[in-house]
């Protein structure tokens, strides 16, 4: 095995392990949400009970997860049509982030149309979305891991965690430990998540990734097919 190949494999394994931990935490969060949400009679303030769990996740995943929560499907709650119960770490404090859920507003944060909400709702499975600019939400470029919250085999909400690009890049660069050959971490659509070269900007589509042989998938236990892989980009 060549030197870059072994560095790529160990980088992929490290990324996979961190993502596994995020999805394991999301499973716990989703289970807690299942325990709170009833088929009827659930109000939005009941979701505030999830805060200690989100606090634990943000602490355990320090640097990687800075925002997490649960968003319900429209019509589930008694006192709100939609509700986005998320907390973010702001200046070291975990705070509830009010989103504008008024469809008439120009700042309307329509989470029901966002990929991290739609995809697991449609697939019934955990998903890894991004990188994308979360405009009106985190207001920065992020990756979101999300999964369904299920009650009696019906998806009633989506539990999610926002991952910082910064930390993903740190895991990537630390494990790779080299800049001699351009290597990129890309998504299934060819978007660059991180790279050790200025030539490949995160968030940019990598042209013709299939032409770059020797790609190393990032193994994520909970995901059916690995959406991320490392390629030699030179």
């Amino acid at each position, binding site marked *: 095995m060549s030197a870059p190949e072994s560095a790529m494999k160990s980088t992929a394994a490290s990324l996979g392990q961190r993502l596994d931990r995020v999805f394991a935490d999301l499973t716990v969060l989703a289970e807690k949400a299942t325990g709170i949400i009833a088929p009827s009679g659930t109000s939005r303030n009941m979701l505030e009970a999830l805060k200690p769990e989100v606090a634990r996740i943000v602490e355990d995943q320090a640097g990687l997860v800075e925002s997490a929560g649960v968003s319900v499907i429209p019509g589930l709650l008694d006192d709100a049509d939609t509700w986005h119960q998320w907390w973010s770490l702001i200046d070291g404090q975990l705070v509830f982030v009010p989103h504008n859920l008024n469809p008439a507003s120009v700042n309307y944060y329509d989470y029901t149309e966002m990929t991290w909400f739609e995809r697991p709702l449609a697939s019934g499975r955990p998903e890894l979305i991004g990188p994308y600019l979360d405009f009106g939400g985190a207001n920065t470029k992020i990756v979101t891991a999300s999964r369904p919250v299920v009650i009696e085999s019906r998806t009633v909400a989506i539990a999610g965690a926002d991952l910082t*690009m910064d930390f993903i890049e740190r895991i990537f660069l630390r494990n790779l430990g080299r*800049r001699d050959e351009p290597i990129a971490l890309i998504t299934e659509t060819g978007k660059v998540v991180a790279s050790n070269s200025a030539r490949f900007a995160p968030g940019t589509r990598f042209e013709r990734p299939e032409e770059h042989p020797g790609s190393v998938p990032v193994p994520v236990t909970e995901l059916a097919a690995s959406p991320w892989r490392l390629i030699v980009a030179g």
Partner: protein
Amino acid sequence: MTDMGGTVSLRALDMAAQVRAQGQVMSGRAEQVTQQLETAIGLGLLNPGERLPPELVMADRLGVSPLTLRQSLAVLRSKGLLETRRGRGGGSYVTGMLAVRETDIARELRNYKSSDLRDLIDLAASTAGSAARLASRRSDELDVRRLRSLAQRFASSSEPHMLRQTDARLHIGVGVAAQSRRLTSLLIQVHAELSPLTWGEAWRLEHANAVQGHEDMLAMIEQGNAAGAEDSAIAHFEREGALIIDQHLDLLTSDLADPQ
């Protein structure tokens, strides 16, 4: 030193006020104004030998109290960037230049998240491209001559702090040639942020490339070739942006390998 530079114009001061410090935690208004004036000196909006306007006028222009302004001026004096002269023709004069120091560049770069750095460079390329496009349609012979003389000042510079200053001035000058007040103001902000990251060790082979990049852009502007002007400006900033990002990646990679 004689008063050859004259008095800093209110326009230059307004430009300094547009400089917005980013990527750093500011403790207060005084620190912010210090940073604004320091950056304005670095960009050559304020130049050695020039006299600053009276403190009350400056404070008003920069939107701070006279007391706050005096605090900032004291800091700049202690850094050797200003000096105060008494008597006739007295007042605060710009005396110093900001030297390019490798440790400052590294510190600035470490303050950036990769995605914010990339965003800054994207904005630099986009604004430069738009300014060059407009300039190609709007510049007359005099405008082009002015840009050429700015490019010449850059080409004949060799000291890093002069390269930094003349480089930023040329690119801000393209906004002026584009006759867009808003674009020029945006260019000042972009270069105020970008300039402290430029012309360090990693740029030692860049001078000839930059001279050529400027020449390509100016030729397109002169020919009235809008698409060519835009493309060459963007290519120029993508090239220099890569120098900055690669240096940032070098720092990150070595910092991570060597935990303190």
